[in-house]
């Protein structure tokens, strides 16, 4: 047998071990995050009698998906909740983009005297938790008689300092020479944003949209404070009302409802994922 150079297989096994270790931790982390989802899906097709039986049986004894899902869809206005959720999320996102993109552009590319101060305030704004401002905003909405409206659910999130910060960071790397060229060609600043900046900022917009939609679709705290009727309830709040009033302890149907309201987010993320992951590509610049 020819002597085999020792270093090479050694290195290969080293790499294998490293890769296995990395995958082990990734799988562990993924399992930790995915297990509740899997359990939710399994429970949503379990017969009601089986939900509280003792022991750990991952596979349902009988398939009760049809009953559970139809109960979730018929006994509660689930589609109404989801329509509310879509309306609220898109409303918030639209206004956020409307303010955050120009603000981010101004902070990244224009020079004016108060710029450092305003940027500092934006950073400061990032540190203020939503709960801090909840009470004053609630009182203001109550005085204005606006409680229990779509507007009340959306208004605290219209100005996203996170969005301003994200777009500012993204626009910072946009080549100044292209903006100079656009000014020489006669673009107004608004046109620069709409025709030059926005088309090249699609990855950032997609990333921000994912953050924004996920957090507001899933938000329970604020809708719970400002809405009382199911008319304006967003999906998580709707689920809560649904649990209290209609189903009591029918966890199968509850989980079916939860699965239905989670689905749009997962689908939306899968669609935006490519943009989201691709990140920043500036073609044709250099």
């Amino acid at each position, binding site marked *: 047998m020819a002597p085999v150079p020792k270093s090479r297989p050694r290195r290969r096994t080293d790499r294998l071990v490293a890769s296995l270790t990395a995958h082990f931790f990734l799988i562990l982390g993924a399992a930790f995050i995915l297990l509740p989802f899997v359990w939710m899906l399994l429970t949503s097709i379990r017969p009601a009698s089986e939900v509280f039986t003792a022991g750990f049986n991952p596979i349902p004894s009988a398939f009760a998906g049809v009953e559970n899902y139809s109960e979730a869809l018929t006994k509660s206005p689930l589609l109404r909740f989801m329509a509310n959720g879509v309306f609220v999320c898109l409303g918030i996102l639209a206004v956020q983009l409307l303010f955050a993109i120009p603000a981010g552009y101004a902070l990244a590319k224009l020079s004016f005297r108060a710029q450092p101060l305003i940027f500092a305030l934006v950073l400061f704004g990032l540190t203020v938790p939503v709960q801090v401002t909840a009470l004053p905003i609630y009182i203001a909405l109550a005085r204005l008689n606006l409680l229990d409206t779509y507007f009340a659910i959306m208004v605290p999130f219209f100005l996203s300092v996170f969005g301003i910060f994200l777009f500012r960071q993204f626009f910072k790397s946009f080549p100044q020479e*292209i903006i100079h060229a656009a000014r020489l060609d006669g673009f107004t600043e608004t046109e620069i944003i709409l025709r030059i900046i926005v088309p090249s900022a699609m990855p950032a917009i997609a990333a921000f949209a994912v953050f924004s939609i996920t957090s507001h679709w899933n938000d329970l705290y604020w809708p719970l404070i400002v809405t009382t009727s199911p008319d304006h309830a967003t999906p998580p709040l709707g689920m809560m009302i649904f649990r209290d009033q209609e189903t009591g302890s029918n966890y199968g149907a509850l989980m079916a409802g939860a699965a239905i309201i989670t689905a749009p987010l997962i689908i939306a993320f899968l669609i935006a994922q490519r943009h989201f992951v691709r990140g920043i590509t500036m073609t044709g610049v250099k």
Partner: protein
Amino acid sequence: MADLTLSGISKTFGPTRVLNDVSLSVRDGEFLTLVGASGCGKSTILRVIAGLEPQDSGTVQIGGRAVDHLRPKQRNVAMVFQSYALYPHMSVHENMAMPLVMSRMSLAERLPLLGRVMPRRREVMKGINAEVDTVARQLQIDALLGRKPAQLSGGQRQRVALGRAMVRHPDVFLMDEPLSNLDAKLRVHMRTELTELHRRLGVTFIYVTHDQVEAMTMSDRVALMDEGRIVQLGTPADLYHNPSDLRVARFIGSPQVNIVSGTTQTKGIAVSDTVLPMQVGLPAGQVVSVGLRPESLSLDIVPGRARLTAKLAHVENLGAEVFLHFILPDSGDPLVLRATLDAFEAHRGRLDQAVALSVDTSRALVFDTAGHRVDSTGRMAAQRPMVQA
């Protein structure tokens, strides 16, 4: 077409003074190059002329009219950028049409959706398309009009950027190192092409570069800048043969001018083992720098010329000519000599020992310790109408 005048332009960025009282007149149709090391303020001048950066003080006049209060597009200047600055998501055609769309259509007409139903738009667009096609044919990029910038090579992007500047028929072309992103071969080619373009258009060009070869080969006049000031303004030949300042002598010319230190004496300037017979009007005993261009030295013994003894260190053979790198034995100063291949071959046998090099003192340049030119021709040069000392 227009002449252009800068008077007393100053500009500071924070604590750094980028432009220091710069004044400059550019004649109508002239090709003027601003050359200097990076950070000397040459690109800032272009941006001030274009209106992209406001100056702290001073005035810009284009065609005899002050433009300081005008927005960039109202100044009717076009700029070609180092990175070309093409709009990445637009086709070549859209890129080139953009300046015309912006100047000929109203705000409503250029709106993405509403604009389509505006009555005049179609007709205007037709005119714009025809003009874009004409310019594209001139630049031989008509086959590329449908492509995006990312699908083009560096040279093609360069042409598109030129085309975008040409369609608007500007009074002044501003070029900010347009060739520095191209490979060496293409750069040489584009040099000729830009010069021809300038001749054909007859428009004022202001061209910024850090490459002295571009400055020397393309320009009518060259302004050499350093630390936010214009050190010397003149024809390329003027800057080469008659630099007013040591910085100019060093920057212009390749290989670089040889600088050897010397001391003034009553009979001339003592350099190494010889005395150069030159009168510079300085008292004896002053330390000066003597600039000798590589072609002011020769291997042949010329009667009546001073001779410097030096030792050969290195030979660069370029084919038609040869650069011989010598070292002065006492000071260790390097000395480059430009020789024809024949001259090199004729003297080759004796080059392994220290040899005497003839010095053409009529072309030597003498500078004082502050870097100012002090020999007679230099003083004449200093008295010329110069924009700035």
